[in-house]
């Protein structure tokens, strides 16, 4: 066969596979949305959930998901960026560094339930923080750090070495060059990594069951003083997230409208991820433009 023909066939196969993927994905999304959206209403979003009667909503769960996401990102983003900088810029190229990298990679393959139990025994019991958003956020941080760190390291590595030389030759420290030149340039791929991480946090259930808990106090959305147990901002209150809620009602739920609540929650979860995605992306693009002068 002539190379031209092979090229044509290969291109056809690649197109076909891409189409199959898109079809799988579209079917999945359509399945979730078509099943769920008819049950979604404004009152579903803003009313509290119920334990055994029909008609409950997901107000607290939705808020909890976002709050937990923000908290765990506040902890894990700086930590992973710093660690990624170290691995990419400062770590000596030796066996020890390789060992650390391997260890971090292996951590990412731990099932989240193990991370959750670790979080339970350490944060909830040992540190006496109790079932709380903060315990959940810390556990999710453990769970997210390996992937984020890895992503940061790779994003930084993908920026050419000559940029660092340029900074160095101008009398700038590697630190300044990395934080002010390399990171802005790597921003798009950093943000992709963060979005992937955020998606994991948003959808995680197993690691939260034992740490953030599977029930939450009725929130008082008019009390924003974090010192009160029923304040939405209190990071020390137990909090059931949307993903945990879906898991719980399907597993042990006894509400009669279980199916409706579960499918509607899934649909909302997907929409929330979508919206989060769009916001993060447009914000990232604007920041990138501002920092790099790109047009």
């Amino acid at each position: 066969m002539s190379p031209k023909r092979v090229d044509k066939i290969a291109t056809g196969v690649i197109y076909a596979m891409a189409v199959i993927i898109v079809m799988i994905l579209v079917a999945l999304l359509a399945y979730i949305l078509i099943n769920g959206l008819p049950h979604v209403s404004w009152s579903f979003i803003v009313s509290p959930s119920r334990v055994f009667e029909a008609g409950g909503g997901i107000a607290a769960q939705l808020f909890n998901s976002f709050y937990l996401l923000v908290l765990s990102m506040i902890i894990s983003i700086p930590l992973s960026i710093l660690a990624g900088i170290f691995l990419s810029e400062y770590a000596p190229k030796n066996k020890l560094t390789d060992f650390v990298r391997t260890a971090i990679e292996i951590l990412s393959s731990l099932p989240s339930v193990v991370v959750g139990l670790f979080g339970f025994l350490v944060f909830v019991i040992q540190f006496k923080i109790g079932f709380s958003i903060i315990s959940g956020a810390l556990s999710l941080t453990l769970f997210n750090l390996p992937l984020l760190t890895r992503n940061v390291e790779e994003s930084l590595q993908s920026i050419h070495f000559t940029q660092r030389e340029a900074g160095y030759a101008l009398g700038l420290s590697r630190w300044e060059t990395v934080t002010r030149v390399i990171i802005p340039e790597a921003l798009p791929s950093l943000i992709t990594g963060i979005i992937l991480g955020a998606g994991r946090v948003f959808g995680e259930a197993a690691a939260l069951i034992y740490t953030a808990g599977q029930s939450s106090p009725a929130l008082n959305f008019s009390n924003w003083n974090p010192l009160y147990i029923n304040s939405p901002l209190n990071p020390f209150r137990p909090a059931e997230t949307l993903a945990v809620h879906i898991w719980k009602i399907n597993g042990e739920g006894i509400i009669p409208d279980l199916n409706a609540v579960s499918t509607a929650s899934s649909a909302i979860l997907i929409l929330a991820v979508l919206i989060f995605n769009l916001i993060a992306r447009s914000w990232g693009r604007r920041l990138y433009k501002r920092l790099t002068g790109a047009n």
Partner: protein
Amino acid sequence: MNDPIRESMLKKSKAAKRETFGKTISFLAIAVIVAVVAAIFYFVASKGISTFTQNGVNFWDFLTGSTWNPGSKGADGKPLVGALPMILGSFFVTILAAIIATPFAIAAAIFMTEVAGKKGTKILQPVIELLVGIPSVVYGFIGLSVVVPFVRSIFGGTGFGILAGTFVLFVMILPTVTSMTVDSLRSVPRHYREASYALAATRWQTIYKVILRSAMPGILTAIVFGMARAFGEALAVQMVIGNAFTVPNSLTTPASTLTSVLTMGMGNSVMGTLSNNALWSLALILLMMSLIFNLVIRWIGNKGGNTK
């Protein structure tokens, strides 16, 4: 002679101080992570090993035994903790899912970076990122209500089993593998492509001989990460694999994985008892297996890198 430039070079500059500062805090960050990793490893290992030290289970029996019933004892008076069914189950679903997902991920990545250009990326990228955000619970339920009946209608049986698990995991790891593959294809310098096209190579030849080859270590890493995710995934697999503690003899009969047993059993056992320790031993095996995977892939990556 007083030369200010000369003097200034002998003092520690602001930049040098910043460098020290940056080095220190980034080192602290990695130290924290290493400490956490060490703590988790220690935690899992110490609990996992106590099955063998405290409860006197033979390690070899644990790996090769095929009966899992930590609550009761076998005919020889030893606890029934044989993890073989789960180890095989985990292996099968992970490898099968990776085998199916890899070509798709590579194809999608090529599509996005080489074939369809910006437009392809615009369509696929958001969809792929969205997929990561779908909770595994939801994947599990879709698997239960779509994949399991599908497998049942084609292959008979109950539909639960390794095949159903593989399909679900395939979709779950696809985004991870794809987006990482895309990154590694993108990092292939443009002049490689230009050089290849300049030699009158077709697009496919360029992709196959130049781009994929130089992106190979990155692609392998993507696959490991995909396998790692498949390996550690619990909720979704647990819902479709059937959770039967039998050595899998076909792809369509119920089987179990390390994670599914772990997730199911944790809440029902009491810390410190054999049933609980045995579960931690499973977690330990999970760690060891991913270590092995990691080393193997690293080895392949090194070999590929040397022959280039």
